[in-house]
Structures are given as structure tokens and as C-alpha cells.
């Protein structure tokens, strides 16, 4: 299935992505310059004098012009060196390696939950369009969009963790310590994050299914005597696959952004917290590195989505 054509497509998409990634880091770097405040002051500490602050600027080469600093960061990044945190001297690559998988696990888990809960809800609603069941499910799904993640996370923590003792209230375990443990710690954060996804998946699925069910070819199949169940399964779902995939792909981006607040509620050392702290303190190597990692991920996810499109629906031709 991996034809030369497909490989060529993948390669060209990756090449196109490169300037996008560079541009993203440049935009982020420029934005950071606009933030008032001076990391040299933070680094100099509580007892700093003006001379000490100037000294720190010399020491860490913070007084070089904007483009020179960005240029040297880019040059190093291209060679694989993302630098070290200005504040803690931890290599940025290590920070990302340590925090990103944590966040990705929770995001993936949240998306799985969104699909596992959202798809059945959508099918259920579509099975009786226009009924009370349908509007009921869709209303509950809408709640999912409006409920704030951090509030819901705190409710879950108070009820399921502190109240019923079913899950830990804070913290994180890495899959290295056992996949079961990792998932157990990640459940409440993932639940807090998946509300939006459930809403989107179920709504999308429901409207696509309803649309298909009233389409020409389904009516033909019906006339041929196929049961509604097999129509739904064999033909309906396969056709909505593309829409569903699109929703999931967009959901990934949204959920990645939303993890920041959930990380705070559950004290999870993920990339969201790392970025927020770095931005607040002006620690730009960490911000740049993390942004690069996230941009790369989004690009890869989009690429995978595009490839899956062609698998699901051969009618879609990729240039």
C-alpha cells in the first residue's frame, strides 16, 4: 500500500512543513521580545544590584541584538542542539523528553475516551433522529463544550479521588513504571479533558450518519433488503470515517492546548506547565524548543491523517 506515489507525497509534505516550523519559532521568539520584563533580573536573584544584572546579561549573552540571538539559536537547533534552560541549566532536549510524553499520554487517552464515548452517543442519537433521545443526547454533548476543563477536573478530584478514593488526586506515573499505573494516574486528567471531544465527536458523527442515512445509495441498499444494522455498520460508518478522522485530528490540537490548565489542577509535570513557566519567566530556549516539538507533532499528526484519508476513501487523491 505504500506506493512510490504515497512516499513521494509524504516526503513533499515534510519538506513543505520545514519552513512552517521555522516560521513558527520565529513568531514565538518575536512575541517573547514583546513581553515586558527581563530574565536577567530574575537570574540575578533577590539581592541583585544594577551592576549584577548587567553582569548577568554579559554572562548569558542576553545583550546581543534580537536577530543574532535568534540566529544562533536556529543554527544550533538545526545541528540538534536546543540549548539549556537559562534558569535551571537543564538541557532543553531533556526537558522535552521528560515532559512531552507525559502530556501526549494524557492527550491520547483523552482522545480515546472522546471516541469511545462519543461514537456510541452519536450512533445512538442518529439511530432515532429527531426523537427525544436524540435531542437529549445532543444537549448533554453541548454541555461538554461549555464545561470548563479545570473546574471539571477539580470536581473529579474531589469526588472520585478524595471522596471515593478510586484514583489518585495528583501526580503522574510514567509507562516505564507499569502501563496500568500510568493509565490509572492519567484517568482523571483525561476525563477532565475529554468533555469537549465527546461533544464534537458525537455531534459530527450524528449529523454525518443522519445525512448518509437519507442519501440515495442507502435508500437503494434498504430497498435491496439489507437490515438497518448492517447498513449502519458496513456502509454508514465507513463513509463517515473521513469526517470522524478530521474531527479527531483537530481535536488533537485543541486538546494539546487545553492540557495546560489540567496539568495545574493535577500537578502533572507536562510540557504545558513547562511552557507556561518558561514564558512567565522569559526562559526563551525552553519556549522555543517546546514550540518546535509541538509544531512538529501537529505536522506529523496532519500528515498521518492525510495518509489515512486515502486508506479510508480511495476517492481522495493526493497531489
Amino acid at each position, binding site marked *: 500500500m505504500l506506493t512510490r506515489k504515497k512516499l513521494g507525497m509524504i516526503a513533499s509534505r515534510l519538506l513543505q512543513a520545514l519552513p512552517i516550523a521555522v516560521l513558527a519559532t520565529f513568531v514565538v521568539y518575536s512575541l517573547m521580545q514583546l513581553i515586558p520584563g527581563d530574565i536577567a533580573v530574575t537570574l540575578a*536573584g*533577590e539581592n*541583585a544590584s*544594577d551592576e549584577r*544584572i548587567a553582569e548577568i546579561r554579559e554572562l548569558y549573552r542576553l545583550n546581543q541584538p534580537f536577530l543574532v540571538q535568534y540566529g544562533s539559536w536556529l543554527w544550533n537547533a538545526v545541528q540538534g542542539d536546543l540549548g539549556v534552560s537559562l534558569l535551571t541549566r537543564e538541557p532543553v532536549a531533556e526537558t522535552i523528553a521528560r515532559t512531552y510524553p507525559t502530556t501526549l499520554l494524557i492527550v491520547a487517552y483523552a482522545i480515546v475516551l472522546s471516541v469511545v464515548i462519543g461514537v456510541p452517543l452519536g450512533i445512538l442519537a442518529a439511530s432515532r433522529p429527531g426523537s427525544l433521545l436524540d435531542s437529549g443526547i445532543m444537549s448533554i454533548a453541548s454541555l461538554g463544550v461549555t464545561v470548563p476543563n479545570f473546574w471539571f477536573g477539580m470536581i473529579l478530584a474531589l469526588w472520585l*479521588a478524595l471522596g471515593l478514593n478510586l*484514583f*489518585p488526586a495528583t501526580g503522574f506515573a510514567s509507562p516505564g513504571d507499569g502501563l496500568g499505573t500510568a493509565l490509572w494516574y492519567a484517568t482523571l486528567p483525561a476525563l477532565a479533558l475529554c468533555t469537549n471531544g465527546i461533544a464534537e465527536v458525537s455531534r459530527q458523527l450524528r449529523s454525518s450518519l443522519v445525512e448518509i442515512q437519507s442519501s440515495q445509495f442507502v435508500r437503494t441498499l434498504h430497498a435491496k433488503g439489507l437490515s*438497518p444494522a448492517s447498513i449502519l*455498520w458496513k456502509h454508514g460508518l465507513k463513509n463517515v470515517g473521513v469526517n470522524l478522522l478530521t474531527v479527531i485530528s483537530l481535536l488533537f490540537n485543541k486538546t494539546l492546548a487545553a492540557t495546560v490548565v489540567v496539568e495545574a489542577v493535577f500537578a502533572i509535570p507536562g510540557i504545558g506547565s513547562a511552557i507556561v513557566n518558561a514564558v512567565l519567566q522569559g526562559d526563551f530556549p525552553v519556549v522555543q524548543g517546546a514550540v518546535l516539538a509541538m509544531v512538529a507533532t501537529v505536522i506529523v499528526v496532519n500528515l498521518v491523517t492525510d495518509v489515512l484519508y486515502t486508506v479510508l476513501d480511495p476517492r481522495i487523491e493526493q497531489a
Partner: protein
Amino acid sequence: MNEKPNPRLTANGFAISRRNFLGLIGSTAAAGMLGFPGQLIARRRGTLIVGAPADPSSLDPATGGAGTDHVFLYPIFDTLVEWDYATLAPRPGLAKAWHYPDPRTLVLTLQENVRFHDGTPFDAEAVKFNLERNLRDPRSNIRTELASVESVAVTGPLEVTLKLKEPDTVLVLILSDRAGMMASPKALQELGERHDRSPVGTGPMRFVDWSDGEKVVLTRNEHYWKPNRPLVDGIEFRIITDSATRLRSVISGQADVAYHLDGRQIPLIERSRQLQLVTGPTIYCYQLYLNMSRGPLQDVRVRQALNFAIDREAFVKATMAGAGEPAYMNLPRSHWAYDEEVAKLYPYDPDRARALLKEAGFSNGVELDMRGYSDQGSVQRQEFLLEQFAQVGIRGRFRTGTIPEMSATYFGPEKGGDFLLSAFTGRPDPSQTYALMYLEDAYFNAGRVPPPPGFLEALLRSRSTTDIEERRQALSVVQRIVMENALVVPLAFRNEVSAASARVENMRSNLLGKPKFEDVSLQDT
């Protein structure tokens, strides 16, 4: 579609009955409640797990800069001089004795049989290495603390003699802080910058690991020099910046202690039967830093009006849930250098404030450029102050931002703002506090205004005598000058609020406000 729905198409589209589904959920829940969690939290029974509010800036005492670092540093590094938890008076540490043969010489006699975590001996050479490094290394942030030291000499295997440029009795308590934290010279030389992340000291705990923003792991120093210490197998600091989450981690049993909590959480802690409330006064002081070189604040009467305009008792009740002490000067009541007479200078008196403003030519009120931080607690304090100020005709709005941002804007070269609502974390010795805030080139003196006459002499007097009563008198003069000239507007001292689980024994708060765990033990469950 008008036909009946196919009965095989059930709720999930799967062939699962409702009963089976509930059974599945039920058994998972049961597994959860049957101690499944307990086994999976693989915790060594004797490790103290502490919820900390901030990541350290560096685990090297000389290169770090945040007041929140000390809690991590104390277990790793002993200090030459220690301090009394309640009054902050000095006590022997790695230096078991010290004396001033003359006002410009300080002799330290060191504790014997002490080793660093890497096995190298702690001796006079090590002390000399550390002090010189603190003075000379370009990355050292504490050079000014040892500014009076001219030379450090090894005058015996366990004796160090410091020659001073001028009399300096503050040095003793300075050596109870970062400058007195002793790191292994071998490690410093071999690791260089990497010592920031791999510290080696003589303290009760050895360093194991630091994951930024996540945790700092320490383990027991088996060869610690103090008998019967430490009492726990290790300490694991978990960085949990949100205070509600930090408290939750103790309630859920995932942590043993959480410190730097908020006064508003006290009822929650007291209500919970599994938690102990550990609280006490500290020298951490909310205050207005004034830039006296610009605008209306150049006039002492305006500054005095600010001081009279605030009902500090109400401030503590309204913004700190009562967990604090009104501050009428830079030191709290229990401090050894507190002066009650100075504290009486500014009772709450809005009429007096209005009269002073009128005298200064602002009978129609005055507009000030106010700065502050944007977190919830700070905003609440700002709202309180605005309300009080409005009553006497002081107008303005607070411009807010994050702590690093606003500190840099106010204290840094930009010098933005007439005053900044912030806090001072306090220093081991009061004369440090006054030097850091009011000397002409002091960082916290944003306007770089020279102090009033008499200040410098009194400050130097407080540093040149070892007699504590004479020091107290000199510091009283300093404090009186500060408050009569309204060089600052102190608001309130914050109480330390910590929560500890029932297993924790001997957790006490201290006046410095930076928790220490050296005497803490864990009961067997």
C-alpha cells in the same frame, strides 16, 4: 424512516446487555477500593514527601536567586551558623564557636569529624574555598553579602580567620544563610556549572535527582555528623505550584507535608481529621516599595499619609483570612530586634492622612502610578488598598503583570511606577533588611534616593558591636528613621501555613518562614 428500530441495535451498537455493562463498571470500582491504589503507590515508608510551591532556581547556594530555594538547600547544606526557630538569634552550626578578637577580625572554630557527601573532609581549607568562591566567582549572586571580607585565612585545621575591611557583626547571621552553606570543594572544582544540578554538601540529606518543575529527590546521609539525625530515609519534594492542588495531595495521602499554603485553606485543614495545621508568624512582609525620586512620593507627608490611610488589622482579616500580623515596621513582634515604640508611629488615622495631603498641597487628592502582580491574592490586596486610599483622596489604578515582569519593570532599569505592592521575604539579620532596602545603591531602593541623615551611622553601629543589646538599640534608631521618614509602607507579616498528615511528627514553623525538616520523623502506620 417510520419502521420500528431493529431490536438487535442496542444502546452501544454492541451485543452487550446493560447488566453486563454495569457489572464491568462495578468490578473495576471494587478493585479500586480494595487497596489496589495502595500497592501501586510504591512509596518507601520512611520517605517524607513534601509538596513544594516552586521549582528551585539552582541547587547551588551561590548561583541561585530565589527566596524559595532555601527549603531545598537546607537538607543538603549545613550552614556555618544556625538560627533559633522562634527568634532568629544565632546558634552554633558547622562553626561550633566564633569570636571577634577585635572588631575587624572574625575567628571561626569548626566542628570536627564532618564529611561532605562525597567523602571529602570538611575543614578550614574547605571553608576558605567556599567563602572565596562566594566572593569571587562571576556566577555568585551573594558577593555583596561578604563585601566586608578582605581575606580568609586558614589558621588551624579547624580554624578560619576572616579579616574585615570594616567592623561587621552582621557576618555571623549572614553565615547562617547562603553564604554560610558549605559545598564540597572537590565537587565544585570537578563539576563547575553542573554543581547547580548536582549539589554536594554536608547536610542530613544527599542529592539524588532533580526533574525540573516536577520533583527533587534526596536520600538519607548515613554519615551525618549530628547524632540521631536524620530521622527519615529520604525527602522527596514534589513541585505543585497551585496551593489547592498541593493541599489535595496531602489530603489524599500522596504527600506528607505541604507548605506555603494560603490562610484561606486553614478551615479546610482544621476540619480534616487526618491533618495537622502547622502555623506560626514569619518575617515575610507584604509592603509597598516606594520610589521616592519621582512624583508626589518625593514629599514625606504624602508617604506618611499612605501609612496613616491603611487599617492594617482589617487588611489581615480581609485579605489574609486572619493568618497574619499587622506590620507597623519591618520586623514582627517576636523578633529580637522589634521596637514597640516605633510600631506606635502609624495608627490607622484617615483624618490625619487627609490633613497631611492637604498640607502637602494635595487638598483635591493625589494621583499615583501603582504597580502590582496579577495573581489572585495580589489583586485582592490591591482592591483593599484602593478602597482605603480612595477614602483619603489617593487615586490611581494598579497596573499588573507577572512577578518576574513587574519586578523587572519596577526595580530594573526601566523604573516604572511610583510604588509596587509586593513583599519582602526577610533576611537572617535585620541590618541586612535595612541595607537592602534603604541604602542609596540598594536594589530595592528603586529611586536610588540616599537615606536620611543618621541612618548610615546607626546602621554601621549596629554592625560594629557584638553586644546584642547595643545592636538592638542601634537598630531601633535605624527603624525609627525609616518609619518617621516613611521610606516604606509595611502592611502585614504573613503566617506560615503548612499542612502535615497525621504520620508526621515534630514539624514546626520558624520565624524565617522557610521550613526545615531536620527534626521531622514519620510514625509507623
